[in-house]
C-alpha cells in the first residue's frame, strides 16, 4: 500500500513538477508569478485530444508538435502582453497573467464547451502486476516523459550558451546586458520554454486524466506552491517541490480524507515558508 502510494504520488508529482518548472523559469527570469501556466497545460491537453481524434495520433507522438505549437503561442503572448506588462508594477503583471488565464479558460469554453472528454485511442494501456505494486502503463508515460524533459532542460540550462544566457539574465539583468547578452531574447525564450513544458505536461496528462477547460486551474495552485516550496527561481527546487507535493497529495488522500488533501498541502506549505521564508532550497 505504501509503495503503491509512493508510486502514484511520484506520477502526479512528476506532472506537477513539469508545471512548477515552467513557473520557476518565469519567476526566476522575469520575476512574474504566472497564473496562466495551468491554462497552457489545458491547451496542450486539447491539442493532444484533437490530434488524437482527427488522425488517431498517439499522445506521445504529438508531444513534439504540441511543444512547438505551445512554444510559439508562448512567444506570441510574451510579445503582445508580457513584454509590455513588465514595464508596469509587479502587481499589475500578476493580474495580467490572471486575466489571461480567465480569457483562455473562457475562450476555450466557448470553442469546445465544458464537456468532459478523454482520449480513446492510446498505445500504452493495461497493467503490470508486481504483487506489491500495480503499475498501470498509462501512468508510466508521464513519469518517463517528465524525467526526460527535466534532463533535457538541465542540460540546456547548464551546458549550452543560450541556457547560460538565460541564467545570467535571471541573476542580474543589467550585468547580463553589459556583457552583451540579448536579455529581451532570453525573456522571450524563457516564456516560450515555460509554455512548451506546460504543453508537454498537458500531453502526458491527457493520457489518463479527463479533459475540460478548467482542468488546468486545479494544477496551478499546486504548481505555484511547489515552486515556492522548492525555493526562489530554482528549477531543481521546483522539481523536488513538485514531487513532494504529489506525495503529500496522495498520502493525505489515502490516509486521511480526500477532501482534506488540499488542506494538507496548503498547511505544509504555510509551515515550511514560516520556518524557511525562502523555501526548502532557497539561498
Amino acid at each position, binding site marked *: 500500500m505504501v509503495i503503491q502510494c509512493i508510486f502514484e504520488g511520484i506520477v502526479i508529482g512528476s506532472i506537477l513538477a513539469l508545471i512548477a518548472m515552467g513557473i520557476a523559469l518565469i*519567476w526566476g527570469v522575469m520575476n512574474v508569478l504566472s497564473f496562466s501556466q495551468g491554462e497552457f497545460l489545458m491547451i496542450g491537453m486539447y491539442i493532444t485530444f484533437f490530434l488524437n481524434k482527427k488522425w488517431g495520433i498517439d499522445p506521445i507522438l504529438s508531444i513534439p508538435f504540441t511543444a512547438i505549437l505551445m512554444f510559439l503561442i508562448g512567444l506570441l503572448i510574451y510579445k503582445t*502582453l508580457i513584454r509590455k506588462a513588465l514595464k508596469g508594477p509587479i502587481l*499589475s503583471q500578476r493580474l495580467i497573467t490572471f486575466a489571461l488565464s*480567465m*480569457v483562455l479558460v473562457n475562450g476555450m469554453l466557448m470553442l469546445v464547451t465544458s464537456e468532459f472528454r478523454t482520449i480513446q485511442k492510446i498505445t500504452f494501456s493495461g497493467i503490470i502486476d508486481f504483487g506489491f505494486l500495480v503499475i498501470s502503463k498509462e501512468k508510466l508515460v508521464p513519469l518517463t516523459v517528465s524525467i526526460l524533459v527535466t534532463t533535457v532542460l538541465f542540460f540546456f540550462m547548464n551546458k549550452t550558451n543560450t541556457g547560460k544566457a538565460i541564467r545570467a539574465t535571471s541573476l542580474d539583468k543589467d550585468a547580463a546586458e553589459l556583457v552583451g547578452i540579448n536579455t529581451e531574447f532570453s525573456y522571450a525564450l524563457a516564456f516560450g520554454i515555460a509554455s512548451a513544458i506546460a504543453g508537454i505536461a498537458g500531453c502526458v496528462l491527457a493520457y489518463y486524466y479527463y479533459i475540460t477547460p478548467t482542468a488546468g486551474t486545479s494544477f496551478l*495552485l499546486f504548481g*505555484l506552491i511547489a515552486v515556492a516550496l522548492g525555493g526562489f527561481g530554482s528549477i531543481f527546487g521546483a522539481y523536488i517541490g513538485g514531487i513532494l507535493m504529489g506525495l503529500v497529495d496522495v498520502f493525505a488522500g489515502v490516509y486521511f480524507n480526500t477532501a482534506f488533501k*488540499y*488542506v494538507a498541502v496548503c498547511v505544509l506549505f*504555510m509551515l515550511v515558508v514560516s520556518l524557511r521564508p525562502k523555501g526548502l532550497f532557497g539561498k
Partner: protein
Amino acid sequence: MRKFININKYFIVKFLAGLLAAIVLPLFIKTPFPLHVMILICIWAIMGMGWNFIGGYAGQVSNGHALFYGIGAYTCGIGVKNFGASPWVTMWIGVMISMGIAFVLGAPLLRLKGHYFALATMAMAECGRIIFLNWSYVGGATGIDFFDRSKPSWYTMQFTSKYPYYYIFLFFVALILLLTKGLDKSKFGYYLRAIKANENSAQSVGIHTAKYKLLAFMLSAGIVSLAGSLYANYLQYIDPTVVMPLNISMMICLVAVMGGIGTVIGPLVGAIVLTIISEYTRATFSYINGFDLFVYGVLVIIIVLYMPNGLISLFNKKQKNKILTPLEMERK
C-alpha cells in the same frame, strides 16, 4: 494635541457632493438592474478599500482576502439561521473573528516577502475554502440559505426592496472612505508607506514594522469581513464557491489596482468601473457560455496594460512631479 484626523475642507466639499449624488441617484432609477449594480459597487468598494490598507499602503500584496470575506458572510449566515441573531450584531462578531485569524496567521506570514507572501495568503484562503466546503455544521458544499421572514426586516436586514440595502451599504462605504482619508495623512498611514518604500530603512528609523504590518493586515481583514457580511445579507444564500473562490481574492486586488493602489479614492473608482464592466458584460453576453468572462478578461488586460497606475492617474496630474520613493526610482 496632535491632530489625528487631517481632512481639509476641499475634501469635505467633494465628499459631501459625491455622497449627495449617490443618495439622490437611485431615486431616478426605476428598474432593478442598475440598482443591483450600484449595490455591488458598494460591496466591491468596501473590499477594495479594506485590501488597500495592507496591499496598497503597506505594499504587502495579499492574494487571500476571500477568506475574510467568506468568514464575514458565514458569521452572518449562521447567526441568522442557527441563533436568530441580528446581522447588525453578528457582522461585528465576524469582524472580530476575521481580525483574530488575521492576527494569528499574520504573525508568521507577514515575515514573508513579495511572491511568497502572495502565495502563502493564497494557500490560506484555499485552506479556508476547503474547510468550509467539508464542514457539515456550516452546510458544506450546499451552503446555507438563511432567508427568514419571521422577524421584522430591519432586524434580520432582509428587505424585499433593493433601496434599503443600497443606503445601508452606502453608509458603510462613506464610513470607510472617511476612515481611509483619516488614516491617509496620519502617522499610521505614513508608517505604512515607509514600510512599502523600504522595509529595512523604515525599521532603521525606528518604525516597529512587524507591528504596523500586522495592524494593517488586521484592519484590512476586518473591513473585508464587513463587506462579506453585507453581501451575505443581500444574497441571503451563501456557499463556499460563491464567497471564497480564488477569483474573489484576485478581484479584490484588481479593484484596487484598477483605481490606483495606495490612494484614498482609487478603490472606489476601481469598483465603479470594474463592477459596471463585469455586470454589463454578464447581462449582455451571457447567451454564449463563457463569452461574458472572456470579454471581461480582455477588458481587464487592456485597462491594466495601458494604465498600470490605475484610472486615478488620469485625473492626478500632480503625480508627474511627485517625489519618487527609492523603489520607484529603481524601477524607472
